[in-house]
């Protein structure tokens, strides 16, 4: 399984100027945010890799990391990118991979990353309607749950 799809992944990585890190269970493909859509489509078109398990957002300090986990057999292929907190914006992959719609909407709510082209862009999926617009997105490190509770007049 690994042998058949390792080569196309390397070719994809070289084409997009990315970096490939094979780990024990996960093959990481790190790319620039502008190349994410192409990378995800490239990975999803490889045999057996059409299943997008989920998309993870991670607070990396100055940046928000976004990881697209694809599953095949005994491994994950993860497309990894990061957007700066000062301009958290990326193109949505939901047009080509509809399974991404809700996962992107979740990251938009919890990390404040805008996904251009997602049906939920500018709308809310998870956060309450009265979540204060001036409060930081709740999963960011700088978000203080106590302060947000006070802003929402919950105590």
């Amino acid at each position, binding site marked *: 399984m690994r042998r058949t799809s390792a080569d196309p992944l390397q070719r994809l990585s070289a084409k997009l100027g990315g970096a490939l890190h094979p780990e024990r269970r996960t093959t990481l493909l790190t790319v620039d945010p502008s190349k994410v859509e192409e990378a995800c489509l490239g990975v999803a078109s490889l045999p057996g890799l059409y299943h997008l398990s989920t998309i993870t957002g991670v607070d990396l300090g100055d940046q928000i990391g976004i990881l697209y986990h694809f599953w095949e057999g005994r491994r994950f292929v993860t497309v990894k990118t990061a957007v700066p907190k000062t301009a958290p914006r990326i193109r949505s992959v939901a047009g080509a991979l*509809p399974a991404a719609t809700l996962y992107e909407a979740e990251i938009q709510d919890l990390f404040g990353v805008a996904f251009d082209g997602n049906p939920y862009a500018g709308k809310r*999926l998870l956060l309450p309607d009265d979540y204060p617009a001036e409060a930081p997105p709740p999963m960011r490190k700088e978000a203080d*749950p106590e302060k947000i509770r006070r802003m929402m007049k919950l105590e």
Partner: protein
Amino acid sequence: MSDAPAGDRKETGAGLMQYSPEGMMPFGPVHPSLKEPEYFKLILEGEKIVQVVPRIGYVHRGIERAAQERTWVKDIYLFERICGICSFAHSISFTQAVESMSPFEVPDRARYIRVVVAELERIHSHLLWLGLVGHWAGFDTLFMWVWKDREHVLDLEEGITGNRVHKSYSTFGGVRKDLPEGIGAKVTAELGYIEKRVAYYKDLVQSEQTLTVRTRGVGRISQDTARKLSPVGPLLRCTGIGRDVRTEDPYAAYDEVRPEVQTSKDGDIASLLVLRLNEVLDSCRMVKEALEKIPSGPFKVPFPRTVPEGEAAFHVEAPRGELFYFVKSAGGSVPERVKIRTPTMANLLTATEMLKGQTLADVPVVLTGMDPCFGCMDRVSVFDVDKSKEWSLSGEELRDYGIEYYRGRRG
């Protein structure tokens, strides 16, 4: 409120109001103390559903954030509380994700015990679901039979782990205690009873008109839709795609106790009924096989309180499908980030596809058919933009409406 023109209503869900000529029915959310409230905006053309917009988060408690402030061990018990039905799936997914980041090997006995409890959990989860489908389709006798039988499985789980629901059993490096003496004979006896009952139910769901008329051809999904929307578990397998984490990416002792992947071609609720019952029978076989093959030895190894720096993605086959955990450690005593994707989240978009083209009367059965964590649709209000009229239906009333609707059609 009901007189306000549609355009003036505050909407935060995704693109809804372009559908104003048709009727719009907000569906949910239910009371937060109940199972899993979610909110579906159903756009109706007469009786027919043309569009569905989900809005979730009513019981989003920020568990992923809370986990970053608790120690690794405390997090196991926190994550178990995400789901009251598949709590063990959450704990083995998290513990195995963390174990995969450390050099410690889990003892063989613990791997087998995990299979035993995980499969017992699958049996009780599928039985719970079958009862709910019976209830929402107006077949309450089935509901009562099945839930009574399910108690036998819960008793077994309690006998092994000490708890019926939140088992607090799996931990880093193994399980918290050994199997009790003489459990093998008890399990074999109880599962023999379950197998007999399930064989009867399998016959029943395929022949009893109360169920067939409500489930055959209802909530159909195609293989193409499934490939596009990446649903998981029985919802994926009922379209004929035989993907199961237990066989494709075996964890615990699933490489030695192999499941038989159940598939079906029809992709409707009727096929889901048979498919899940087949899975129950297979799980019974696997529990007995695991108890026969189980090696002796330690059931736990000591595990350090900190986790080496790194990242791990791990998934297990929960009763509802692939349950995904992503764990990131900075080497400290608390996790840096834990991401959880539950099966219902992956199946939500597919469920909206299943609802399209169905009638309002089919909503309870189709939504229960996907086996979400919400069978308890509590408060439904119906809004008809044309007539500027709003009325409310409780979940029970909607159920009665569905039953009456089908009774009328049968004459």
